[in-house]
């Protein structure tokens, strides 16, 4: 939610030169670097999971729940599965679903937002009606109902998350697209005889890079969270190993009641960390496009009088 709200307010970048510049700026932003490092670590561990734990992590053993120890760094579940292995393997499905659904939702949002903004008229009316309706219909209940009737599997989860996830982004992108549509350079492109599709893709879209980015990050965060929620409710595919199903099994095995924190903390923390990392990137994008949001060098209240620093010796007075 936070991301949608902030994205709404992100103003057009001062000197936007599309994605390249945005990414370069991200590299200079502390928040973004921290976020990217965390994301990278997760992606890396997801990729390496089969190397570190070549065994099927979901294999049920007789071990019973053991707290963290030398052999199992994060302990084992009630079914004797290694929690660390489950968490690492879980990141594969969670990240895959999160990123795929996030990407798809963003894609839909971009298509619908741009089409509405560019063509206007009846098409826009219809698209924004659909957008607003999807935005208003409570997402999770709709997810629950959709997930219940489609066959289980990652595909379903992705489709369902896409269906419920695109609207927020589409609305923001449409608003931004509308303002860019009104810009003279779009009119100039029309006057020079460019085709609509090219104008949308080459003139409008690159100027929304940061908004597309925040939408993408927001959609990914939303997807990861919603997937976990669905799986926790038992509406996901309980066969795949993901953070959500790990938590589902943790509760159904009663680890909460048994105080077996090592079973339910890692996956929850993983979700939170990746969402946090993505949010950090998102805020970084906001800061890049809106430099005012950056941390000022010194604390000051918004209505403080101009700082007077007469005499460079640092005799500063704020009086």
């Amino acid at each position: 939610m936070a991301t949608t709200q902030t994205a709404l307010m992100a103003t057009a970048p001062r000197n936007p030169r599309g994605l390249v510049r945005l990414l370069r700026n991200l590299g200079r932003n502390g928040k973004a670097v921290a976020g990217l490092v965390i994301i990278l670590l997760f992606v890396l561990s997801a990729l390496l999971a089969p190397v570190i734990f070549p065994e099927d992590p979901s294999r049920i053993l007789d071990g019973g729940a053991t707290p963290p120890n030398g052999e199992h760094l994060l302990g084992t579940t009630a079914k004797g599965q290694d929690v660390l292995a489950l968490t690492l393997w879980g990141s594969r499905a969670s990240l895959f679903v999160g990123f795929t659904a996030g990407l798809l939702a963003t894609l839909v949002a971009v298509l619908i937002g741009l089409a509405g903004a560019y063509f206007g008229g009846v098409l826009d009316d219809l698209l924004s009606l659909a957008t607003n309706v999807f935005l208003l219909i409570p997402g999770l209940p709709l997810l629950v109902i959709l997930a219940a009737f489609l066959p289980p599997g990652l595909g379903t989860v992705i489709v369902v998350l896409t269906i419920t996830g695109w609207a927020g982004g589409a609305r923001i992108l449409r608003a931004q697209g509308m303002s860019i549509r009104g810009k003279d350079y779009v009119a100039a492109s029309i006057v020079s005889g460019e085709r609509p599709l090219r104008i949308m893709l080459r003139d409008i879209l690159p100027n929304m890079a940061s908004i597309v980015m925040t939408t993408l990050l927001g959609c990914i965060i939303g997807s990861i969270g919603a997937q976990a929620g669905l799986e926790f409710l038992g509406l996901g595919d309980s066969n795949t190993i993901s953070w959500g199903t790990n938590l589902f099994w943790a509760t159904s095995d009663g680890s909460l009641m048994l105080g077996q924190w090592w079973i339910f903390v890692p996956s929850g923390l993983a979700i939170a960390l990746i969402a946090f990392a993505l949010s950090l990137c998102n805020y970084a994008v906001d800061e890049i496009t809106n430099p005012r949001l950056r941390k000022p060098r010194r604390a000051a209240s918004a209505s403080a009088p101009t700082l007077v620093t007469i005499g460079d010796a640092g005799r500063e007075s704020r009086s």
Partner: protein
Amino acid sequence: MNVTQTEPAIRIRGLDKTFVQGGFRSRREVKALNSVDLEVGRGEIVALVGESGSGKSTLARCIARLETPDDGVMEVLGEDVLRTQRRRASKAYRSDVQMVFQDPFGSLNPTQRVEHVLARSLHLHGKARKDLRAQLVELVESVGLPAEVLSSFPHEMSGGQRQRIAIARVLAVEPKVILADEPTSMLDVSVRIGVLNLLSKLRDERGIAILYVTHDLASARYLADRILVMHRGTLVEGGESLALLDSPQHPYTRMLVGAVPDPERTIPFDPEERRLFRTEIEAWADAPSARVLVDHESGHWVWKPKETTPHA
């Protein structure tokens, strides 16, 4: 387009455009253009002046086919374009009629280099030559910029430079008509005149017809051969620049002329006089009126109430 040279570049008859504001319950109609007749000859600069909201941009945008007029005839280089190219303007039309926008900051895509912008225009209209680079250099030099700007992004240039790039982009397609919608109003004072001089050079050297939209009477006088005054969507007065400004006939024109800041002015501003102007303008607008030729030589005409005499 194969037309005889005697045709004016643009001839417009009875152009109407109404905007609808509001939703389905209470709609308000704004008549932005009301039966506009206009002619711009080849190699002529015609200035369109009027206060804010009088419909100047709407007229320019209609000619640029960014808006579709409700009614009227629009002949461009002899072709009745509203009839022949109903839905969208043809490519040929696009390469004949080009537009320069008011805001040089907004009319160049911030994500594209100058090079790209210009090359794109050339390609679109099949004007690109083998030695594209040389062609581009030639193009920017023709608007008085060095070749280095080609690799810059718009935000790396000053407003005046940007406006010149916008003009270069327009020139790339070798148009016969340029619509310039307040091309200097966003520029720094010191570079405004340069852009105006550039436009005037284009007319002189290339014979391009220019419709110059502005609210700055002084610059209109400086640049244009003829001036047309627009008021609430209607052209109320027109004629050769100097002649028209020397003896404005329509009270609205007179008010505009009076409002131009002029250090030479001796008579101070008088609100009472302004009020009289306003009443008169209303009276003129309401009365059944006719177009009257004031001065045959300069083609100076005014749209005025039927019974009053020109020099009241």
